[in-house]
């Protein structure tokens, strides 16, 4: 009664074949990650020490640590966030909750998508023109961070808008029906339920911003600085540029240094990513509807 027909058998073979093919593709996907992390840890771990993390480079950067670059990256990301998050979240709230569906709104949405597609070196040149020269910030943390912020904006806007739109429309209507204004509805019902998604997007953005090299190269990141920056109008060293420098620009560099820098940089990024994943999992557990 349940004997397999020829067709059954063939279906079964095909299904096994596809399962195997799709599975191995997925396997290939994680291979680069494992290889990169493996190599970095293998070759970079010997370089990591307290001294490496918390002292400035010495001997033409072939010895000493990376502290100015580490601090510089943290500063750059922080200032970039201060600029991009309020602006991006505000714009996303407007686009999601207020903007009428007309050609102007659609044009803005198109602009945001295009902004996300602009190559980072173009952002860098824009940063030089706008912030370094026009606004007279000079090559400085401020100019570099603002350039990063503009790169980050579309991502912040899209992440925020998506978490806002994940809040069911029925909640808004229920609130409006009680005589709430749009803003009252946003503040009391929409934002509290979207804030988690917004936060996740922001953290992911941090990890991306931290690794950017091109936008900061011409706008505020320096090859080598003997002193730590004193204000946002000073230049700074940064991890990503430092990695480029120690890998290609300095002769007789001990091999473990660039690997060590890369390991620290990728650890920062992975740390932020895991934080974002953990946050998302924690909050999904608390999902309210």
């Amino acid at each position, binding site marked *: 009664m349940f004997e397999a027909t020829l067709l059954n058998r063939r279906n079964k073979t095909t299904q096994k074949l596809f399962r195997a093919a799709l599975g191995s593709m997925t396997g290939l996907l994680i291979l680069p990650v494992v290889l990169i992390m493996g190599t970095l840890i293998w070759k970079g771990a010997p370089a990591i020490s307290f001294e490496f993390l918390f002292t400035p480079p010495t001997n033409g950067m072939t010895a000493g640590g990376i502290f100015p670059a580490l601090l510089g990256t943290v500063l750059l990301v922080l200032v970039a966030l201060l600029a991009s998050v309020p602006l991006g979240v505000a714009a996303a709230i407007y686009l999601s909750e207020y903007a009428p*569906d007309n050609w102007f709104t659609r044009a803005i949405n198109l602009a945001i998508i295009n902004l996300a597609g602009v190559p980072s070196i173009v952002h860098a040149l824009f940063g030089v023109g706008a912030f370094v020269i026009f606004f007279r910030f000079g090559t400085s943390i401020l100019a570099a961070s603002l350039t990063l912020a503009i790169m980050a904006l579309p991502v912040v806007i899209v992440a925020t808008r998506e978490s806002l739109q994940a809040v*069911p429309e*029925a*909640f808004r*209507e*229920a*609130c*409006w*029906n*009680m*005589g*709430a*204004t749009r803003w*009252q509805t946003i503040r*009391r*019902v929409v934002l*509290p*339920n979207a804030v988690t998604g917004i936060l996740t997007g922001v953290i992911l953005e941090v990890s991306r911003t931290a690794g950017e090299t091109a936008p900061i190269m011409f706008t505020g990141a320096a090859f080598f600085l003997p002193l730590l920056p004193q204000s946002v109008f000073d230049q700074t060293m940064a991890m990503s540029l430092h990695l480029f420098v120690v890998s290609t620009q300095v002769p007789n560099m001990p091999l473990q240094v660039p690997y060590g820098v890369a390991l620290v940089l990728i650890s920062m990024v992975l740390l932020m990513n895991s934080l974002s994943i953990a946050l998302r999992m924690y909050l999904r557990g608390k999902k*309210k*509807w």
Partner: protein
Amino acid sequence: MVIAPRPRADSPGPQAPVKLGVEKLSIRYGHDPVLEDVSLEVREHEIFGIIGPANAGKTSFLKAVNRMDMFDRSMHVDGRIVFNGVDVHKVRNVYGLRRRIGVVFPLPVGLPLSVYDNVALAPRLGGVKKRAELDVIVERCLRRAALWDEVKDRLNSLGSMLSGGQQQRLTIARALSQQPELLMLDEFSIAVDPVTTMRIEDVLKELREEVTIILVTNLVQQARRLADRTAFFLDGRCIEVGATEDLFTGEVRDPRTRDYVDGRFG
């Protein structure tokens, strides 16, 4: 507020003032008409039933009264809706209008706030800040909606985590917390068990002392139990408006009304 004497159930009397006047109301979504040329009057302190099969335009009618056409670009409303003597389409302060009109929809929407905050939301929007004052309102409204005994020990748990029937009563409590002058219920009993339905019906009978109620229902017997006067909607038209008993005892102008009431179609 002066509380008018309770009208007799069988005839509310034409002398009761008009709470909601509707003249030549037509509603369409895009090019699809859903309601055409409806004129009727709802008097103060009556329960006004609206019965009719699906797609008759009952829900759209409620939406138009509450100015919900503002949320939906495709919804177009023509004609006049006069609430408390004011044309709702000329009301500047539409938030004030909505605050005076409570709505309960068939699928309950418990906001993802605590039970307490769900009911306290409307008073808070209206500017009530004192905890003691809010406590009183919340308890009164939850009691009214026959929900207090079930939730009094977990006022801080999420409203959206209550069962369907409880959420429905929560939305009724929330509508009451607005202290509305007009309460519109749209098939509130769909998600509620029969026992709770009867309890809510009792509550509605009491509420008639304070508010005017429009009850949209697809249970004709529910309209018979509660409504002073009833309108019969069919295919976007108001076929008949009359004292509820007349509709059920056969004194109808249109044979289709009798057919629907007797359950011969729908």
